[in-house]
C-alpha cells in the first residue's frame, strides 16, 4: 500500500489533495468522479464520510453530506467505496470525519476495517490532541498514520505537542473558520507554514479556503508539502447535479489545471 511519505518524496513540489464526500451525490457517480480526479492528477485523496451534524464544515460540504446521506450512504458502504477506489489505483487515502461515526462503529474495529480497505489515516474533525489517546493508540495499532490539525490560533507549544503525536502529515487549516471556498487566500498561510516547519519535520499540508490554481501555487511556494482543495471541487458537483458527465469533466479539468500550476512552480 502506497504511503504518504512515498508520495511526498516522489512528487515534484507540493502534492495535490482533493477532498470529496463519499457518495456525493450518489454512490456510482461518486466513484466515477473520484476515479476521474485520480486520472487527472490527484496525488492523495481526502475523503469524508457524511455526518448529520458537520460542525467544522461550511454550507457547501454540509449540502454534500445531506445529498450523500439522502441517497443512502452508510459507513459500511463507505468501506466498499474505498475498496473500489483502491482497485482503480493504489493512492493514499485520508479519511476526514466526525467522531460519533467512529465511536459507534467501535474505534478499534473502525481503524482495522478501514486500514484493510486501503485507508492511510483517519482525521477526526471534532477530536483535538487532548483526547488523542482515545484514538491514537488504536490507530497506530491498526497500522494507520495519525493526522491532526493545526490552526492559525494554535500557539507554538501546542504546535509542538500536536507535531509529536502526528505521523503522515499535519493538516494545516489556513483560516479561522469552517470549510468553504474563499476568493482570497488567507495572508496567514505563509507564516503559519514556516512556523510549523520550524518545530517539526512532519510534512505539512494546507487546506480550507483554497479554491484557485494561484492559491495552490502560493501555498506550495510557502513551503507546504501538500495542498488540500475541498469546497471548490464539491461545489462543482453541486453546480452540475443535472449533468453528471459535465460534473466529471469540470472536476477533471480543474484538477489538471491545479496540477499544472503546481508543476510550473512559484510565479516569480
Amino acid at each position, binding site marked *: 500500500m502506497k504511503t504518504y511519505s512515498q508520495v511526498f518524496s516522489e512528487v515534484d513540489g507540493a502534492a495535490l489533495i482533493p477532498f470529496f464526500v463519499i457518495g456525493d451525490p450518489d454512490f456510482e457517480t461518486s466513484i466515477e468522479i473520484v476515479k476521474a480526479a485520480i486520472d487527472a492528477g490527484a496525488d492523495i485523496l481526502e475523503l469524508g464520510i457524511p455526518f*448529520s*451534524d*458537520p460542525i467544522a*464544515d461550511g454550507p457547501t460540504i454540509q449540502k454534500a453530506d445531506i445529498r450523500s446521506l439522502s441517497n443512502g450512504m452508510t459507513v459500511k458502504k463507505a468501506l466498499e467505496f474505498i475498496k473500489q477506489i483502491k482497485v482503480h489505483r493504489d493512492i493514499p487515502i485520508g479519511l476526514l470525519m466526525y467522531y460519533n461515526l467512529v465511536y459507534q462503529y467501535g474505534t478499534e474495529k473502525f481503524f482495522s476495517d478501514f486500514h484493510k480497505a486501503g485507508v492511510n489515516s483517519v482525521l477526526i474533525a471534532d477530536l483535538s490532541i487532548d483526547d488523542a489517546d482515545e484514538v491514537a493508540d488504536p490507530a497506530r495499532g491498526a497500522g494507520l498514520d495519525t493526522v491532526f490539525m493545526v490552526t492559525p490560533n*494554535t500557539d507554538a507549544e501546542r504546535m509542538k505537542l500536536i507535531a509529536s503525536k502526528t505521523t503522515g502529515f499535519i493538516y494545516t487549516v489556513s483560516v*479561522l473558520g469552517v470549510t468553504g471556498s474563499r476568493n482570497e487566500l488567507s495572508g496567514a498561510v505563509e507564516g503559519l507554514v514556516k512556523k510549523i516547519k520550524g518545530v517539526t519535520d512532519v510534512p505539512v499540508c494546507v487546506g480550507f479556503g483554497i479554491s484557485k490554481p494561484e492559491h495552490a501555487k502560493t501555498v506550495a511556494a510557502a513551503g507546504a508539502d501538500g495542498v488540500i482543495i475541498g469546497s471548490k471541487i464539491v461545489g462543482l458537483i453541486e453546480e452540475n447535479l443535472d449533468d453528471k458527465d459535465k460534473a466529471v469533466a469540470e472536476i477533471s479539468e480543474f484538477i489538471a489545471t491545479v496540477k499544472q500550476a503546481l508543476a510550473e512552480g512559484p510565479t516569480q
Partner: protein
Amino acid sequence: MKQKGRFGDYGGFYVPEVLIPALEELEEAFYRFYEDDEFVSELEDLSRHYAGRPSPLYYAKRFSEHVGCKVYLKREDLLHGGAHKVNNTLGQGLLAKYMGKTKLIAETGAGQHGLATAMIGALFGMETKIFMGVVDIERQSVNVHKMKLCGAEVIDVEGGTGTLKDAINDALRYWTAHVTDTFYLFGSACGPHPYPTIVKHFQICIGIEARQQCLDEIGRLPDMVLACVGGGSNAIGIFNEFIDDKDVKLIGIEAGGRSLSSGRHAATLVAGRVGVLHGAKAYLLQDDEGQVYETESVSAGLDYPAVGPEHCMLKDSGRVEYVAAEDKEVLDAFELLSKTEGILPALESAHALAHLVGLKGKLDPETVVVVNLSGRGDKDVGIVEKYRPVKD
C-alpha cells in the same frame, strides 16, 4: 485545558482544534473570577435587582388537591425574561465583561435563552447575535420579536430540521470564525467543557434557595423534586443541592413527543445510546451508525437529541430517575395549572407537571413535591391555541 471536564466517562471537549484556545481562555477566566469577591458581589446585586432573585416557593393548593399530594412550585417563571435562563446569562455575560469581550453569540430553541442573552447584551452594551432554527422562529415568534427589541440580531438557521440542534451547529461554526473577539454564551448544561460546569454553577442557586425555603416554610425537606430535562440546566440547577439528601427522590422529565414508540420524541436519556455530539460524550438519539435523529416535541426548548453529561452520570448511578411525558399529557398539564392556579407554565416546565399528574392516586396525601417551574407559558399560548383551541 486545565481540566478534563468529565462526569464519569461523559462530557469532555470534542471540538475542532480551532476552538480549543477559546475554550481554554473561557476555562481560565471562569476559575479566575467565579469566586472573586468583586465578581460575586456584582452578580449577586444583578441577580437580586435585575433578575428578581430569590424566586418564591409557592404552595399550589388547588393544583395539589387535584393531584392528591402537596405541590410546591419553585417560581423561576417569575424571573425577568420569564425563565431560569437569566441566571446563566447574567453569570456568563458578566464573565464576558470581565474578560473584556464585546460581542455575544448564543443559540436558542424556545427563544428563552436567546431572549435572556439579548437582555444581557442590552444590559452590558454588547453586540448580540442569536442563532435560531427557522422552525423555532416560526413557533416562537413572540420571543424573536422581544430579542430584536432588545437590540439583538436574530440569525435564521435553515439547516437540518431548523431546530435547536441546528442552531448550535451554526453558532459553533460562526464562533470558529470569530473566536478572537466573540463570547459564546451557551444556554444549557451541555456542550463542550467548560460549559456544563459553568452553566451548572450559575444555576445551582435554584436548588440552594429551594432547599432552604423547604426547611424554612414547610419545616422539612421535600419527598420529591421534579424538573424537565432538555439540555438539563434547570434540572441540574435544582437537583444539585439535593443530591446528598438520599431520601429526596429526584426525577427528570424528558420530552416524549408524540410517543416513545413512534420514534418522534426527544427523550434522550430514556431512549438514547451513548455518543458524541456538540462537544460532549453523552446519551444521544441516533441511528445504528451514529447519524443523529431528528427529534420532535411540542416544546421547542426540549426539542434536542443530546443531553448534559452530568445527567448521563446521574442516570447511570441511579441517583436521578429519568422519564418522559408525551405532548398530549403536557398540554393537559398546561391547561390544568392554568385553570387551577392562574399560572401559565412554559410547555417545557409542563412536562414535569404532566409526570406528577400521572402519579395521581399513587402518592400519599402528605407527600411534599417540589416542581421546578422553570419558565412561564406566555410564549406558548399560540402553540397551545393551535393544538387546543379555547372554546367560548
